[in-house]
């Protein structure tokens, strides 16, 4: 059967990917030969690689950078979470079940708003806020929090809509109101997944917070850029290792945590 069938969607998609990639490659006017660094590039690679084994640490700076990175990430994710929870409830279709056209308009408006929040990258939000207000810790936090709130709200609302209807139906048959059905029959089922996704986004927030350093905020990225521009490769490696360790530790922790509460 497979052999005689016309081209499947899958094959068509694979073909489109290949054609699009080729077109994009030609458009960019790049060549594979450029992937073999010459002259200066080779030197940098050699020096940089050699420094990997002997990272040089200024413990105090590293600790400060690490703390600031974590601080921004914590503030951003908590703010994003607080914004996302009400948004996700309004954006979910199950909250509005059995409600008229006005509700659907409201839901659609909120969903578009959410899409707008997350379509703009946190660094672009940062540039915008920096230009409009100037450098301040709160602008870093808000820059991360806006797109993260959008992403959280979208995923939360999907999780809420996907949870099982059974309990809600049971509460319906014993006379629970619309709100009671939603908040006691549906929402509790979504909470483990909501929390574990929020924790995953915290990992991402740590990375985003580190990168904001490239714009002058005193997080890990600031020192990576500074030391690299000063050709202190050994110090760059120290900060890179700390960044790596931070991400891996949090990832391991969240894996353990997920095991406990997502049955």
């Amino acid at each position, binding site marked *: 059967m497979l052999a005689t069938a016309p081209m499947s969607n899958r094959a068509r*998609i694979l073909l489109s990917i290949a054609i699009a990639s080729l077109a*994009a490659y030609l458009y960019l006017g790049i060549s594979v030969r450029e992937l073999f660094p010459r002259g200066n590039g080779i030197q940098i690679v050699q020096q940089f690689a050699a420094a990997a084994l002997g990272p040089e640490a200024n413990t105090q700076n590293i600790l400060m950078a690490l703390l600031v990175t974590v*601080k921004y990430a914590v*503030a951003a994710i908590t703010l994003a979470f607080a914004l996302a929870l009400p948004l996700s409830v309004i954006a979910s279709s199950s909250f509005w079940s059995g409600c008229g056209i006005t509700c659907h308009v409201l839901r659609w408006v909120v969903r578009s708003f959410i899409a707008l929040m997350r*379509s703009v990258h946190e660094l*672009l939000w940062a540039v915008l806020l920096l*230009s409009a207000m100037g450098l301040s810790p709160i602008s870093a936090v808000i820059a991360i929090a806006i797109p993260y709130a959008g992403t959280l709200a979208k995923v939360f609302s999907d999780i809420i809509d996907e949870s099982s209807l059974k309990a809600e139906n049971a509460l319906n048959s014993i006379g629970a109101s619309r709100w009671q059905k939603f908040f006691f029959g549906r929402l509790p089922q979504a909470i483990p997944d909501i929390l574990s996704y929020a924790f995953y986004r915290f990992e991402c927030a740590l990375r985003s917070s580190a990168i904001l350093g490239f714009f002058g905020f005193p997080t890990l990225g600031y020192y990576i850029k500074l030391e690299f521009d000063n050709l202190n490769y050994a110090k760059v490696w120290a900060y890179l290792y700390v960044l*790596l360790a931070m991400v891996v530790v949090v990832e391991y922790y969240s894996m353990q945590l997920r095991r406990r509460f997502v049955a």
Partner: protein
Amino acid sequence: MSREQAVEQLWQRRQRSKLVRFTIVLAVIATAWAWMFSDITFADLFTEQRVKNWNRFWTKDAVPDAPNGFGAWLGEQMSAYGYKALFATLAISVVAIFIAGASGLLLSFGAARTIGGLQPSRFSPVTRMICIVLRAIPEYVLAFLLLAIFGATAWPAILALAIHNAGILGRLGGEVVENLPSRPLQSLDALGASRSKLATNAVFPMGIARYLLYFFYRFETCVREATILGMLGVVSLGYYVVEARAHNDYDQMLLLICLGAVLVFVADVISDVARKLLQ
């Protein structure tokens, strides 16, 4: 023993996870520290200087300088740099996700602990470790380091995106392979098929649909990241954003940020459509 006492006793003996409780305490402390005992404060938004900056930005700096009307201005801006910024960003992310998809495919065969419950892989722990390291470094930092090596071509951005996403797709693909139905694979194995034969003849056709779902989900994020990698000096949308800001052309900067949002939105739609077709 009264009923109240019995209830009290059951409450004392209820199941609690130490890790979860520890995490709650930690989260409360961290939140309190970040918001109450640090330099992060909302009051900072409302100092006289900031409010003045804010007002000036939205009433003067960011207002398009358009003597011939907004439409004409928009047309000019688009042909001057708008289309270039959009296409370059899209092209970078397409090439990057192609490389990431292809390498992730190879990595997923290695990362899978078992195939159809059979043939446990000796390379699995190593491959999984590679995947973790590949995705642990943020794209932006990778691109920054690669820029010094390759110079200001599109390659640093492409490679940074490709490396990071190959790590993620490798891990996800590994899970796809592990979760494949075992019956057909076991019968092929009984016929004496080698691991590579199994991979090309059975695992690939069975797992590719699911893998493509992840592929398109990563494509979305790839486009989103590609918009900003230009800020390092590579020609993508971010490059023009930084240029506009450096010249105090805040109207152009704002336009570019909106273009970025549109681009990400379009990528969202493309990936949604593709995923619908696959299901």
